[in-house]
């Protein structure tokens, strides 16, 4: 079968790889119909996530048709069209039972700090991902969810990560009616977080980035204010001024390790790997939120350390909430929102690539060429 093949930092290609097999009674094999490239895939692509092995197939946002199931699979069957949450979760451990499906204790041998994730290095379990024609899906009784009749396939694939992560970013902010919410990062997740902040009753939503076409998109799609930090002398001072010197009620870091905007963070975090990515957005979020405010973090960082003003967290009495999205927990509500037209995730997809064009897709998305916001890969059998 055709599958994306990681060859080293900023080098990927399409290759023929062996078909995946059932290795566990709760496994399913899925024929992929859509697979996104995620902003967090770029951390892998750039070689910033430890234990990213040459030969691995990335891809944690995908949909497909179930073509084979293991002997203990009862919740889905061959022929079902499913969307597959990016978390691999057993549904039985203490954490899954608390709906912390992103923190499963039975899906990642290599690290206790993160649950298993499809196609996201051995630090997240060593599973090949969905940027392929076929993929092995463990715990098929828990994750895969049948796509409702009539749902657009592009909407379905966005429900595997982008929509739940953006929604949970807003949810973890504990937004109260009338709150001012500032989202750092106008990538797909940041735009979705800005959109979802309204659902929780925000009174004002501001998004900060430096990519002008994405800010323009966010302004229209999320009906929020959008500002380019390159044109602001200091984004934190700007937030303070525009909130009558109080600070935002809630700040959301929707950028993570690839943040621009601070030379020292960029050099130490992205170029020299002396810290676990550039923490510029988190730094700004901590400093721009009000005293007693909430910082919600969904931006992905590496497993080591980052330079952030932790003293300000103490002195301002901040609450920081963070997690990988618990996709399975959120899906029922989010499917409703998509079906009711409250959320239109497919509008974020700007590019469809054939799976064979995976190298171009990564490069275009990474370098923000051709006004790319969200690329989707389509395998030959689904074209």
């Amino acid at each position, binding site marked *: 079968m055709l599958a994306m093949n990681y060859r080293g930092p900023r080098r990927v290609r399409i290759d023929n790889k062996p078909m995946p097999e059932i290795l566990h009674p709760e496994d399913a094999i899925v024929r992929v119909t859509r697979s996104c490239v995620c902003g967090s895939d770029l951390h892998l692509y750039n070689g910033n996530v430890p234990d990213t092995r040459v030969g691995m197939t990335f891809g944690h946002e995908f949909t497909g048709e179930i073509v084979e199931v293991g002997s203990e699979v009862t919740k889905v069957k061959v022929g079902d069209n499913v969307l597959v949450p990016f978390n691999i979760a057993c549904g039985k451990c203490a954490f899954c039972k608390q709906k912390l499906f992103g923190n499963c204790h039975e899906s990642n041998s*290599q690290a206790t700090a993160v649950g298993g994730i499809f196609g996201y290095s051995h630090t997240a379990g060593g599973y090949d991902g969905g940027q392929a024609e076929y993929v092995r899906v463990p715990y098929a009784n828990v994750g895969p969810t049948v796509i409702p009749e009539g749902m657009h396939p592009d909407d379905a694939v966005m429900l595997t990560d982008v929509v739940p992560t953006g929604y949970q970013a807003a949810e973890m902010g504990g937004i109260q009616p009338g709150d001012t919410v500032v989202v750092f990062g106008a990538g797909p997740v940041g735009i979705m977080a800005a959109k979802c902040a309204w659902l929780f009753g925000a009174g004002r939503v501001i998004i900060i980035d430096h990519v002008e076409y994405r800010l323009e998109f966010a302004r229209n799609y999320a009906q929020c204010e959008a500002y380019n930090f390159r044109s602001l002398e200091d984004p934190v001072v700007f937030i303070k001024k525009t909130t009558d010197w109080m600070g935002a009620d809630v700040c959301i870091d929707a950028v993570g390790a690839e943040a621009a905007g601070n030379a020292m963070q960029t050099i130490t975090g992205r170029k020299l790997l002396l810290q676990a990515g550039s923490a510029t957005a988190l730094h700004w979020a901590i400093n721009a939120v009000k005293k007693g405010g909430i910082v919600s973090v969904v931006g992905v960082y590496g497993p080591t350390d980052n330079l952030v003003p932790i003293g300000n967290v103490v002195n301002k009495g901040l609450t920081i909430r963070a997690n990988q999205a618990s996709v399975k927990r959120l899906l029922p509500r989010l499917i409703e929102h998509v079906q009711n037209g409250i959320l239109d995730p497919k509008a974020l997809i700007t590019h469809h690539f054939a799976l064979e064009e995976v190298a171009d897709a990564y490069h275009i998305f990474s370098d923000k060429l051709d006004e790319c916001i969200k690329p989707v890969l389509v395998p030959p059998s689904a074209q």
Partner: protein
Amino acid sequence: MENIPEDKRHIKGWGVDIDPKNDPTYPMKHRTNEEHKGYSWERPSLQPVNIEVLHSNERPNVTAVFGTSTPPSGLSGMIRRYAFKHSENSYLHWLPLLLADRVNVVEGIVDDFKQGHVPNIFAEKGMKADWKHDKAGLFQKVAITALVTTAAVLILTGKHKELAKKF
């Protein structure tokens, strides 16, 4: 609800998920303290371990399922085995893993040649997209690469001293 801004009501879905009782919200919302009972839940069936699976020393075992992509091998595999002797709390875990990843890149190129495949680095880097969407950037990259390569060759061959004398 006195804070509801009148001018936001036109936004479709505004306030549909307001939940004053949602505090503390996720990830603490569904806390049951089940983990206080320790590692005691009924585990799922265990995937047979028939490849080498490195596991964190912060847990006692391999998880019930695990990925089988690219088991450790070669020099990079040796470095990874060393890394897994140290906990996730230690730089001696993460830094060797990053080193192993870089060694693995070289191993990948060697493997390609062994299999008679000459890697097309330009295609793997997606530079066709540069040609289509960012010609200026592509020319800049080529110019910088040429400049750095020329400088490196001059320094390595000692010819920069001759050039310096001439000028």
